[in-house]
């Protein structure tokens, strides 16, 4: 076991082979056909494609369940049986079985976090400079979307914070549009105080939670 299990939340990547039996059973289409019997599933956990960190999954059905925590750890689940013992697939097996699906994964979203001057909707100087990086990330993508999400700390009412988060998000959106990003590519949302970067109790001032996150994907 690696002793460096990550402490921070991270992405988990795994693949699911819903059916490994020869994919012959092209649906014959009619509604009158009785449902096909359950097919075996091979389920494997992979390291995150970007960070290399491996998360954890729990595979279960009515007959039993087991966790998988090992990179390329896999279980074959047959119909009407508990998930089979975990085996470790080789990298070659992963590529052979899942290469086509992995190749079709969209590029990882790029994230930016912008902060505001205190009590204002103007960006800090450092955050202003990041706008150019956002533009560059958008230009790299064939089918770009820009998602702008406003956040607040836990001061004040939750409802008011949704409104405040939206104000912050709109002000970033306006900066992006002024910088040349087409408005139709941009979605704006507010998570208010429900998605804290730094976990705090209610009514806690925390500058790092007063932010706007941009996801370019």
């Amino acid at each position, binding site marked *: 076991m690696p002793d460096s299990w990550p402490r921070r*939340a991270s992405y988990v990547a795994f*693949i699911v082979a819903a059916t490994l039996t020869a994919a012959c059973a092209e649906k014959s289409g009619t509604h009158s056909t009785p449902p096909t019997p359950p097919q075996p599933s091979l389920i494997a956990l992979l390291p995150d*494609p970007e960070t290399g960190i491996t998360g954890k999954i729990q595979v279960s059905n009515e007959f039993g369940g087991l966790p998988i925590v090992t990179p390329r750890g896999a279980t074959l689940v047959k119909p009407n049986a508990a998930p089979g013992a975990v085996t470790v697939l080789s990298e070659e097996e992963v590529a052979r079985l*899942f290469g086509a*699906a992995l190749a079709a994964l969209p590029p990882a979203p790029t994230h930016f976090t912008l902060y505001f001057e205190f009590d204002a909707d103007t960006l800090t100087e450092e955050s202003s400079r990041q706008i150019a990086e956002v533009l560059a990330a958008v230009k790299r993508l064939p089918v770009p979307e820009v998602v702008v999400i406003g956040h607040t700390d836990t001061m004040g009412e939750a409802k008011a914070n949704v409104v405040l988060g939206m104000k912050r998000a709109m002000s970033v959106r306006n900066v992006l549009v002024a910088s040349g990003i087409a408005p139709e590519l941009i979605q704006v949302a507010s998570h*208010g105080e429900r998605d804290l970067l730094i976990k705090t109790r209610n009514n806690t001032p925390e500058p790092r939670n007063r932010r706007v996150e941009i996801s370019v994907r």
Partner: protein
Amino acid sequence: MSGLKTCGGFLIVTLLMTTPVAAQQPTPAGHVKIVTGAAFIVRQNTTMPARPGDAVFATDTLRTQGNGTIGVTLADDTRVSLGPDSEMRLERYVFAPADGALGMVLNFVRGVAAYVSGRMAKLSPDAVRLETPAAIVGVRGTTVVIKVGA
């Protein structure tokens, strides 16, 4: 009399015209980013060829044929892709953290697929469920990983 009728007809027409505008558009669950070969979106019994940029909605099914592949990015940055001759139904998708509403059920019907979790699995691991015909897969955050690895 005929004036009343005309008036009533006008009212109905007005209602018919304004209702769809007033009705709220459903928010897409995500967008298609990558398509190679034959890939389709099935929505309420209608099968449409999938193109990059297409919106995907909860209860849509993604399907590939032959050597087709498709990759989508969902609203919470989750990424899902299908290899050849594969099918996946986006059974449920709710991502509204401001309302505390989170939920994702992906039903892998056949073929091969890849999944990379996004923000939802971070915010609420229990909100994410992957289903295959033989098993259910729960995604756990890193905190739980540390416990199990110990």
